[in-house]
């Protein structure tokens, strides 16, 4: 059991390529706003404790410095935050994954995550909700009439090779679920009737928790899985073993 390094911002260790920029943004935002919190409260306490012997000067601050400068200062802080954060958001979400990225489909179902790999033909087989039968080994309802589905691999853990971009396609069978992988700094709802995409690149080998972040019923808290990030060679071997086991 690896000891978690004590991070000043309490975030779990990041293991995704885009996460370093996000952590940096989070830390300086927390630092600036935390400082504002402390200054405001120090000021409040000074005002509480201040006891003038006699009323002094102009009672209400009227000078331009006092009235306008703080507003401009705060507007500048908010604007800087908005611009830096929007640039990061745009770089992460405005473009899809690269064409050569790995394809994995994630399906949420009360109360289980399923991860489907397209197999050797690199194409997912068609799904039919009426064929969903977890007890008979077809939890996703893969249609046996579709050739593309024959080599699909369905796993209950997400296994990814380190350093390669992955394009996740999110589905939900029944209700809204939330795919949350804290170490990948990633959260996206899986919505029934919609196909949603998120992409990221894991950069550190290890095993990370996957949780459901959108309340989905009585088993919501146990709707968890593991993400295993392994070396490229090991990943090839894992995929081969899964194909052999079909």
């Amino acid at each position, binding site marked *: 059991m690896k000891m978690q390094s004590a991070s000043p911002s309490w*975030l779990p260790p990041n293991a995704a390529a885009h996460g370093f920029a996000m952590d940096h943004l989070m830390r300086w935002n927390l630092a600036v706003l*935390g400082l504002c919190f402390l200054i405001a409260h120090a000021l409040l306490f000074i005002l509480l404790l201040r006891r003038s012997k006699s009323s002094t000067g102009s009672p209400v601050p009227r000078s331009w410095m006092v009235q306008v400068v703080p507003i401009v200062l705060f507007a500048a802080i908010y604007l800087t935050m908005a611009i830096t954060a929007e640039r990061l958001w745009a770089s992460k*979400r405005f473009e899809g994954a690269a064409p050569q990225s790995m394809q994995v489909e994630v399906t949420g179902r009360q109360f289980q995550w399923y991860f489907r790999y397209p197999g050797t033909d690199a194409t997912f087989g068609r799904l039919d909700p009426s064929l969903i039968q977890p007890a008979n080994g077809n939890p996703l309802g893969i249609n046996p009439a579709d050739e593309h589905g024959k080599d699909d691999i369905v796993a209950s853990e997400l296994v990814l090779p380190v350093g390669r971009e992955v394009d996740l396609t999110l589905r939900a069978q029944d209700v809204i679920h939330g795919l949350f992988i804290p170490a990948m700094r990633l959260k996206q709802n899986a*919505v029934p009737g919609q196909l949603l995409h998120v992409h990221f690149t894991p950069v550190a080998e290890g095993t990370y928790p996957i949780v459901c972040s959108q309340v989905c019923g009585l088993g919501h808290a146990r709707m968890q899985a593991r993400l295993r990030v392994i070396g490229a060679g090991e990943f090839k071997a894992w995929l081969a073993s899964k194909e052999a086991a079909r």
Partner: protein
Amino acid sequence: MSWLRRHVFTTNHRSVGLLYLALVAIAVAIGVVLSLLMRIHLAWPALCFPGWGVMKPEDYLALVTIHGTLMVFFVLTIGPQNAFPSLILPGQIGAKGMAFPALNAVSLWMTALSLFVLLAAFLVPMGAPISGWTSYPPLSAIAAAGPGQALGMDCWLLSLAIFAVGQIFGAINILATIIDTRVKGMTLGRMPLTVWSWLISSTLVLPAFSVLLAALVLLFCDRHLATSFFVPLGDAVAGHVIRYGDGSPLLWLHLFWFFGHPEVYIAILPGMGLASSLFANFSRRPVVGYKLMATMTVAIGLLGFLVWGHHMFVSGMNPYAGTAFGLTTMAIAIPSTIEVLSWMGTLWAGSKRRGGLILKTPMLFALGFLSFFIAGGLTGPILAQPALDIYLHNTFFVVAHFHLIMAMAGAFSLFAGVYYWFPLITGRRMNETLGRFHFWFTLIGAYGTFFPMHLQGLAGKPRHYADLTGPAASLLPNLLPSERGITFSALLLAASQTFFLVNLIWSALRGLKADANPWQATTLEWRPSSEEELKLIRHGPYEYDVAWTESDFIPQWAEGGDQE
């Protein structure tokens, strides 16, 4: 019988206001008990509750759902938005009562009925709903999706539908009262900022609760009339496949949050107006930038309708929309910051007067409101940014944020209002020593409860988890000690309210007799009833620190004046 007719089955605005406060008291008491049950379970997951056993995950989710619904609607909405206006608004604008007294009573009894229907959800087969106060479909649309999603969910829908109609009636009444029944001379520029807040919050209620009502009706149709507004074709819940229609769960999110975000401003704007008035009163200084404050209240109201998408950054909404909603949300930080700066300015001016700020209990609670408004407000700019929110969404960071900015700020403004207006209603003052104990213990309990939740959220702890076990347990290696610290603080927070209850009862019976205007306030509700009928007012709402009078203030009802 005659007592009942005078104080309960009446259209008198003060009696209706007090009954609204009684509903708040019932709802907050139940809501607090539910939250303590959750907190105790989180700190001691294996604990066996006498007569109930170990808390099951579905029980926990039912508690979350009813706790949230009670607190948001029946405490933080009807307290500031219905109880206080019924009690105070007519007095503050020199009216004899609400514009439509009977309608006011109708809203009250609809709200009471709606509370009854909501609580009935605990008693129906399978119990209360488990989908949270936001009730996202398909979980809320299909009875088979979970326990409590059958009859319990119908109770929730019916309760909120009745509540929404009651709110719409209430808002129409407040708007008509403010627009139509102000005493001569009470121009817009002389209205106290509380009245400005009720004007704006009631304007928000009309579209917000109308949209909520529509969404509730659509969801009801999906559940019972085989429509498909929110359920997609091929949705497979518990082995049953939906084979008709093709709706979108995202539509509910849009409708719900189009209501839900203005709703938080409906809950907090009246508190902001009250804080402005109390800071002026207990600083003996005019509100810094009165016109600016009124304008910012309007600005927050308008912007409040353009930010709902910041609840939906991870929902599957287009990422470009995420950018747009992120920017509108950052924009709303500016009027909010201006309000805080103005409050600070009033306090700064007051601290320079001889003797400094007057730290009576209502002022302490107003300062507590400001502290929470700052603490909860400052995490707003972080959650407003989609790039950061996609990590923090639905973690305890968000729970900390809205409990500080909405729940604690809202509760402290309710306390401030009760301590401040108690002499007006009862003719007696509340005890200052008990009030001070109440304030400090509540403040410490509240920060002890909600501040550590930021850290749990940063560590990745998700909401709506009865137990953090399995792979996710590695996120918080020291989970139980931190849960216990929070639970002890929550128990302290709840126990501190004993000071308030004792004070309330003791002061109502034995409290010091209050003068006609015990806080030397300027606004009209404090006008001695012995004076003859008010025909015309000539003064602004915050004429404190006036040099040429013997006292340091000119009440709005004073004769003369140079303000024409």
